[in-house]
């Protein structure tokens, strides 16, 4: 019945993590470390670190990692499906509502107010990423030993190619990765 428990735990994490990303962390910790003791605190810290280095939502990463550890490949699939399921159900309903009522003036007004706010939210995620890229200790302190000048140059070069020449961003990110791999392992 371990599979059912895996599914149910990640279903709950999916259902109650509103606001994305780091909002899910305390829920994951409670279900995985405290309630079911599938991971130790140290393993939990490791999976968070890995999540920051690898692509994809933190909860999907956690679901795959815990699932693999508890029940192999099948466990990983079950935990991941469990996490995604609440999204599938809720988004299906919300999309139907959106499709039907987006032309209504009240919903139109609400969306008109939300659009600029969402741009602000994305901007704050962007600034956080710029800061953690430019400053080695992650805080805005303009000391030469704390500033990553190579990252600043890479940022500027990437921004210029995307902005001016409309190069595929995935290509640009990959090139930045190669440049980083060479530069940081040499210096």
């Amino acid at each position: 019945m371990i599979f059912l428990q895996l599914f149910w735990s990640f279903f709950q994490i999916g259902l109650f993590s509103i606001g994305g990303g780091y909002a899910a962390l305390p829920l994951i910790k409670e279900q995985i470390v405290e309630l079911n003791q599938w991971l130790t605190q140290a393993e939990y810290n490791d999976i968070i670190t890995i999540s920051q280095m690898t692509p994809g939502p933190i909860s999907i990463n956690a679901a795959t990692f815990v699932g693999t550890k508890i029940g192999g490949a099948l466990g990983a699939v079950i935990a991941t499906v469990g996490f995604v399921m609440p999204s599938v159900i809720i988004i299906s309903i919300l999309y139907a509502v959106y499709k039907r009522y987006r032309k209504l003036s009240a919903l139109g007004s609400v969306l008109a107010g939300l659009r600029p706010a969402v741009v602000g939210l994305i901007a704050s995620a962007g600034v956080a990423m710029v800061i953690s890229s430019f400053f080695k200790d992650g805080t805005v302190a303009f000391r030469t030993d704390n500033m990553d000048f190579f990252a600043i140059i890479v940022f500027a070069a990437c921004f210029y190619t995307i902005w001016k020449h409309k190069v595929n961003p995935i290509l640009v990110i990959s090139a930045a990765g190669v440049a980083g791999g060479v530069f940081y392992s040499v210096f």
Partner: protein
Amino acid sequence: MFKFSGEKFLKRDFRFYIKLFISCFELSAFTFGGGYVMISLMRKKFVEKLGWLNEEEMLDFTVIAQSSPGAIAINTTLLLGFRLAGIPGAIITVFATVLPPFLIIYALSFGYSALQYNAVFQGVMRGMQAGVAAVITDVVIGMAKSVLKNRAKAVISLVLMIGAFAAVSLFSVNPMLVIAFAAVSGLLLFRDESGEKEDRK
């Protein structure tokens, strides 16, 4: 045939589904640093390059994805799938989005500690982070321009945008609160917005 923004038609044949799958897979594989990165890449691909979505839909999907439970990237990709090709579309996009992190973590779960301290790997990650930061910057500028395009509402929109940014970045306000506040502001201040003119351009 499927109707797009009142003018464009797109054939939903086998090649379309393959393209949808590959696009989402690719996007997801490069989503370092949270759901908003996915949204930025998605906008570049589906709004700017392919023209399958318009800017307003992208922002609406972001709002819905952010205010629903679950991961923002998964929610956005589901909305995209539903919008482009109904239920089969949603199945394809969610599968394509889950697959890259799933495969990577599955592989890493057998020997991750070695990679964590590998200098080349860390260098690649730092380089990519700078690239991702550049993409997100470009997308924010594009989105801000599109939101401010409507002159009559530009001032209020600008205030909401800067307010949301400052609330979250400087005062660590919960994004859900910001969204609730913006929804109410929209309802009160954008009364005349009918939403219908969106489709006409």
